[in-house]
């Protein structure tokens, strides 16, 4: 295993072959829709039972070191599993799909797209924006805010479902940070108009 992309490809193949329900989340999804940035990990959201986790791990090559400690997220009541690929070093985080309403909505709306020449399930760009703004507001991480801005900038003002985004931002209390993000993305949209 030489690269992070190889590791993600191996995991995607395993998930697809097993027929599991999943979604590629985090920076892989924001990179697909926005301005790419370096990423040292890949996040996956899974809708599987505990026994299926073991079936998945059994499929992975020895280069994948599954952390024996499954962490339990108190807020969402879901599990989180880390898989390391020490040779490279790259991290894969698996999250159980939670009952959070937006988590459910974005999983339901996920799209089957091509990623690394494979069928893969990804969130919509609107859901990437909503999620990144939520994290930006809650965890105060500037990279989440920047990711949301970059998705808006690349996708374009007229291409995004703003009523959907605003609905969830209202639920999450992130309408103000949404307005800030739109203001940051606006120069890219003006650039469109100038073309």
């Amino acid at each position, binding site marked *: 295993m030489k690269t*992070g*992309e190889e590791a993600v490809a191996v995991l995607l193949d395993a998930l697809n072959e097993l027929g599991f329900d999943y979604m590629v989340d985090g920076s*892989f999804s924001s*990179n697909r829709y926005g*301005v*790419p940035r*370096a990423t040292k990990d890949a996040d996956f959201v899974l809708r599987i039972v505990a026994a299926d986790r073991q079936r998945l791990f059994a499929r992975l090559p020895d280069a994948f070191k599954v952390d024996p400690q499954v962490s339990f997220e108190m807020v969402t009541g879901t599990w989180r599993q880390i898989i390391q690929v020490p040779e490279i*070093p790259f991290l894969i985080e698996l999250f159980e799909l939670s009952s959070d309403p937006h988590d459910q909505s974005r999983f339901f709306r996920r799209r089957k797209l091509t990623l*690394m020449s494979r069928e893969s399930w990804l969130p919509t760009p609107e859901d990437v924006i909503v999620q990144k703004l939520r994290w930006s507001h809650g965890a105060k991480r500037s990279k989440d805010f920047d990711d949301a801005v970059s998705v808006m900038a690349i996708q374009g003002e007229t291409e995004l479902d703003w009523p959907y985004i605003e609905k969830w931002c209202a639920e999450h209390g992130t309408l103000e940070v949404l307005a800030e993000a739109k203001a940051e993305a606006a*120069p890219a949209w003006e650039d469109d108009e100038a073309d």
Partner: protein
Amino acid sequence: MQEAIARDARFADLAKVRQARRMTAEERVLAGPRLFAGVCGRMKEGLRDEQPSATEEEIHRMLLQRFARLKKLETTRHPIP
């Protein structure tokens, strides 16, 4: 001066947006881990400068330690809500 800095920053950001729009979706996705691989390469070069007698295995272990520290810093500064 501040205005010039702000203007240059906006110009740099727009340049990145234009570049990203010229890429395919696949290229944008692959850029993430590839940029990270480049970062690892440069970090290892720095570690070799600091520890010229270290073996490649030791260099790799030091790299992993640095990332572990960075991860700890991230989770301490920004606890997951």
